[in-house]
């Protein structure tokens, strides 16, 4: 029971933290619950499909189908997070101002919700398919322990959702005029972490095999298998033994995101170009 609680908790937390950040990043945008809920729903459905076709998927591309699939959905998420951040760089100030002025939800942000719903969807799909496969295994074995294991899974789901809610409310404690600046950084680091994770999957699949040597090893200090290491892995892409290609892609993602955001922000009229600290 404890084993299933831990597994489900771990996967739910990884997807849940992403949902928490997305919810904070879309604070004040009309109909966001609908979009985020749709993303979660589509993710759960997708997770079941991926689990059902796991074997077929794995056998594609000379046995590298699973790795390519994981890399592809991670890179999709990176693209969507970039789109959101760039869009917000142009419109975020306007949304924050409108929120303050009318104290109500604004509809201007709805376009970016599609991007974030896709991010939520793929996060749930990725972590969810592992939960589905695990629970399928339990169900297939049957026996008396199955009930206890499923109970553990339900507890894990509740605990994971609880931690994600903490993340969300913690972010909401940030003053409104600073919130979007903070979530923009969180999303940038999230995207960079996902991109470097995608590199690892490509290398696992036998592609993209350059700079594969481990650059440093901090597993003695902050192991990725521990709770703190795992949380940092999900949030900012922490790796206790990253390779050169991963670091390169991580840095490139952050740089690209910042250049794009700055470019879009620079095109706006003067008031929106005022740095955050001056607000």
């Amino acid at each position, binding site marked *: 029971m404890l*084993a299933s609680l831990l597994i489900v908790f771990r996967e739910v937390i990884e997807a849940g933290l992403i949902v928490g950040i997305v919810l904070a990043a879309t604070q004040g945008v009309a109909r966001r619950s609908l979009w985020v809920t749709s993303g979660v729903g589509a993710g759960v459905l997708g997770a079941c499909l991926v689990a059902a076709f796991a074997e077929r998927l*794995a056998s*594609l591309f*000379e046995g590298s189908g699973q790795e390519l699939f994981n890399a592809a959905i991670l890179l999709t998420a990176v693209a969507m997070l970039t789109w959101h951040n760039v869009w917000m760089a142009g419109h975020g100030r306007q949304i924050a101002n409108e929120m303050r002025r009318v104290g109500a939800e604004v509809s201007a942000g709805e376009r970016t919700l599609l991007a974030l719903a896709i991010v939520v969807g793929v996060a749930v799909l990725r972590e969810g398919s592992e939960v589905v496969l*695990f629970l399928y*295994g339990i169900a297939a074995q049957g026996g008396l322990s199955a009930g206890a294991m499923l109970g553990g899974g339900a507890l894990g789901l509740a605990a994971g959702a609880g931690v994600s809610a903490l993340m969300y409310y913690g972010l909401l404690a940030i003053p409104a005029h600073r919130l979007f600046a903070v979530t923009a950084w969180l999303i940038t680091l999230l995207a960079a972490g996902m991109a470097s994770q995608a590199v690892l999957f490509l290398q696992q699949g036998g592609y993209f095999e350059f700079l594969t*040597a481990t650059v440093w090893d901090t597993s003695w200090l902050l192991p990725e298998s521990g709770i703190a290491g795992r949380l940092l892995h999900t949030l900012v892409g922490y790796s206790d033994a990253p390779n050169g290609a991963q670091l390169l892609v991580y840095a490139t993602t952050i740089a690209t995101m910042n250049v794009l955001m700055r470019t879009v922000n620079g095109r706006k009229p003067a008031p929106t170009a005022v740095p955050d600290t001056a607000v």
Partner: protein
Amino acid sequence: MLTAAAAAWAWSAYGQDAPLALTLKAHKFMPAEIHVKANEPSMIVLTNGDDTPEEFDSTSLKVEKVVAGHSDGNVRLRPLAPGRYPFMGEYHSETAQGVVIAE
């Protein structure tokens, strides 16, 4: 499986040592200890002989790979510094434990 065999062949044709066979049966790895050459890439072909799927999981090896019941999966290992790298079957971690030893 044909694709895994083809990939394994392509791997050895590429000039690497033959892939290492690892079997999962009754949620236990055989052999539970795998020896690889340090500082060289290597490949494990995992055959899941059980009815249920399993995830080969190792944070120290940086590998997560789901292998469906009664099928094969390729696990590529990066060049490893000498040492012990534990791995497990995440879905049955009480029994499915093993270690890669690079030397």
